């Protein structure tokens, strides 16, 4: 077997760690989760030389080993546990040449763990522009490490880094600074109490809330000859430790790094003056939001129409090529329309992730956080809630996960609770098809159409409801938590094309396959339920209809038979049973089935209707045409009219219909209480508002 070196990539956020990871692994990477928690785990393989490969783990960005979030806990749990299968042979600390001082703090901590460590100084191409000169041999000596100058942007220095990784056994393993020398008595006693352990590791165990398998805080607490200090005393010691480390770093950099201020040029100050401006900052932000909505609605409609038609064609062709039978029916009426319902999302999701990843990569997202913090706080949220709320327009699942860097628990909980109100990509297909059916396709003024304005209104409605709900929750919830807020404002960068593409591909893939499995399974189940019935009414449909309707043409007769069959299938009976509940909202039993199946995931709605209607007709048309032809049997009017359409739009805007979101909220809040609160309240709200809308408009 080929030799594999285990490498952990560690570094502050915004140092280009992920770019280095992408350069090392290319597309040879996979994203998963750490067992039991939802922290994203990115790993990949990098070929170093003949027969030697490196397994590279991209650890979550962290500012120090003093963890303050779940993501950061992952880093220290791994680095303290030698038994972990991912425990690195070599740690690669990625730093950014412009923030070297701050980045080195984490580096000195990693060195204290006595793991072979390489220091990558990234963005080396910026050195000239910033007037920075480095004395590499001096830095290597003082920091007791090997340094690799890399420019991920220009693809420089990666081969040298690979060579360093390959020869990791020759790297020094000793610390570069004695950071614990500020309280010699205390640490001497600690050492005496546990002679077999590294003092720094003990210190981390004492100060951090992490799961350190063999050894826990408990073990230290019960030791008779050593006492843990009080929390505030510990905090003082941690402050002293930090000061000590910075003294060392300042001393080294004074000799090893020269900045010629005169040579330094930068767009940063100029851009900041505009982008964080009290008026222009907001103006630009809302302009960008408008652009994003335009892209989702307008630009992605072309590929979406093509996909819709392609699947109708595929279904038709399959039907004409393969011999008729229940198995072929399952393929053409269950699986293909079900798959179509998934694939049709891809353009919109890709656009959303494209914009979000460009905004994050460029450093602009931090400016939005800065601009919005004060406003969001009025509603019990944080400036950092903007990122989840904006990513919530793609999908609530990553959005709930993106709340992790909100330090204040109450603000974080409120953000998690209201995020599902934002218009996620899964609502879009439902919105799009209903808007197309019930809102007139006419222009208002030059650019905007009623249809796109309706969509924009629904987005604002989602966002507004989220903020309003937050305001109420802020008044109701009595949670005391320390409020602090520190956010780094990274320098501006032109987003790296490769990073953006990889991000879009990964996220879209994860979404499509994650949701896809549920949608496909439900499509097949629905098809089965719609294709079989519990009694003779179903199996004898043909005779019953033929005997009662003598004056119909063959085509009309076929339609009558299939709709009679559907009504008397399993799903028909189930739908009829819930019809009294949904009838006041203006829906028939077919929409009722759609809504019920939507509780697995909203996007299932379109697929469900596609499956149900496709069971009822032999001719393959697009889903939209089939829905437009549907008639409400009670009123005789089209089923999808303005009143029922608006009612349905509002129902989907408010209802909590996503099992995956509920599951993720359960994991992030560590209790079933909060997801249940979401489910119950949002469903009641959705029903009430849809009811009012239909009754008023009808």
């Amino acid at each position, binding site marked *: 077997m080929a030799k594999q070196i285990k490498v952990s990539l560690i570094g502050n956020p915004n140092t280009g760690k992920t770019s280095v990871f992408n350069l090392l692994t290319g597309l040879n990477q996979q994203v998963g989760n750490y067992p039991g928690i939802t922290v994203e785990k990115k790993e990949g393989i990098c070929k170093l030389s003949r027969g030697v490969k490196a397994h590279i783990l991209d650890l979550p960005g962290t*500012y*120090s080993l*003093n963890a303050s979030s779940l993501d950061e806990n992952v880093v220290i749990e791994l680095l303290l546990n030698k038994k972990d299968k991912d425990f690195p042979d070599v740690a690669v600390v990625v730093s950014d040449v412009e923030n070297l*001082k*701050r980045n080195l*703090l984490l580096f000195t901590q990693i060195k204290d763990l006595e793991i072979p460590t390489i220091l990558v100084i990234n963005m080396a191409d910026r050195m000239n522009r910033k007037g920075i000169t480095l004395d590499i041999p001096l830095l290597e000596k003082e920091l007791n490490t090997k340094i690799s100058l890399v420019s991920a942007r220009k693809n420089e220095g990666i081969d040298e880094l690979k060579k360093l990784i390959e020869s990791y056994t020759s790297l020094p393993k000793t610390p570069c600074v004695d950071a614990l020398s500020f309280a010699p008595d205390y640490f001497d006693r600690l050492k005496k109490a546990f002679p077999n352990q590294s003092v720094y590791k003990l210190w981390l165990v004492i100060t951090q809330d992490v799961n350190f398998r063999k050894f826990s805080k408990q073990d230290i607490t019960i030791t008779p000859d050593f006492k843990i200090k009080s929390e505030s005393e510990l905090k003082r010691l941690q402050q002293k430790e930090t000061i000590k480390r910075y003294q060392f770093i300042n001393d080294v950099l004074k000799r090893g790094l020269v900045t010629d201020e005169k040579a330094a040029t930068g767009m940063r100050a100029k851009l900041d003056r505009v982008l964080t401006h009290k008026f222009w900052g907001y103006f630009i932000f809302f302009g960008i939001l408008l652009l994003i909505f335009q892209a989702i609605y307008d630009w992605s409609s072309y590929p979406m129409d093509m996909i819709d038609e392609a699947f109708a064609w595929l279904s038709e062709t399959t039907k004409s090529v393969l011999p008729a039978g229940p198995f072929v029916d399952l393929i053409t009426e269950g699986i293909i329309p079900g798959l179509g319902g998934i694939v049709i999302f891809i353009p919109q999701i890709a656009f959303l992730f494209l914009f979000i990843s460009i905004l994050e990569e460029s450093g602009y997202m931090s400016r939005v956080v800065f601009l919005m913090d004060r406003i969001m706080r009025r509603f019990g949220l944080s400036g950092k809630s903007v990122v989840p709320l904006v990513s919530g327009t793609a999908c609530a699942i990553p959005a709930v996960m993106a709340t992790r860097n909100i330090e204040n628990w109450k603000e974080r909980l409120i953000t998690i609770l209201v995020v599902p109100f934002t218009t996620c990509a899964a609502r879009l297909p439902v919105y799009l098809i209903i808007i197309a059916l019930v809102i007139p396709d006419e222009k208002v003024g030059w650019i905007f159409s009623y249809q796109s304005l309706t969509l924009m209104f629904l987005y604002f409605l989602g966002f507004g409801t989220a903020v309003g709900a937050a305001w109420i929750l802020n008044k109701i919830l009595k949670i005391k938590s320390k409020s602090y*807020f520190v956010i780094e404002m*990274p320098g501006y960068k032109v987003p790296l094309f490769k990073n953006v593409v990889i991000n879009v591909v990964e996220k879209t893939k994860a979404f499509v396959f994650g949701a896809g499995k549920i949608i496909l399974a439900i499509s097949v189940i629905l098809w089965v339920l719609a294709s079989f019935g519990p009694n003779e009414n179903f199996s004898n449909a043909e005779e019953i209809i033929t005997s009662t309707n003598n004056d119909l043409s063959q085509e009309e007769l076929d339609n009558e038979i299939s709709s009679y069959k559907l009504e008397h299938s399993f799903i028909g009976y189930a739908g009829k049973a819930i019809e009294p509940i949904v009838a006041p909202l203006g829906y028939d039993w077919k929409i009722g089935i759609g809504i019920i199946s939507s509780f697995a995931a909203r996007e299932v709605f379109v697929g469900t209707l596609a499956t149900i209607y496709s069971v009822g007709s032999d001719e393959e048309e697009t889903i939209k045409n089939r829905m437009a032809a549907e008639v409400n049997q009670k009123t005789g009017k089209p089923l999808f009219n303005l009143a029922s359409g608006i009612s349905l739009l509002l129902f989907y805007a408010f209802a909590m219909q996503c099992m995956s979101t509920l599951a993720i909220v359960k994991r992030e809040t560590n209790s079933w209480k909060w997801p249940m609160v979401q489910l119950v309240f949002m469903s009641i709200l959705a029903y009430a508002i849809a009811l009012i809308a239909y009754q008023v408009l009808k």
Partner: protein
Amino acid sequence: MKTTIASLKRGQRALIKEITSDIIPLKLLEMGCLPGNEVELLQTAPFQCPIYLTINGSHLAIRKEIAAQIEVQII
């Protein structure tokens, strides 16, 4: 009245004095907010919160209530 980061004006520079309050999060210290370091106020959002600073070469934003806990000496 004590001079703190919250009382700085745009473009003003100052040196950080002792840090005594327990409210200051460790994370802020780790990002360079330590005694003796220079801080410059770059921008404030409407209503003076949050505050956009550069400390020790790091660019960061903090809220007013924390800024009001960090004593400085204007230079």
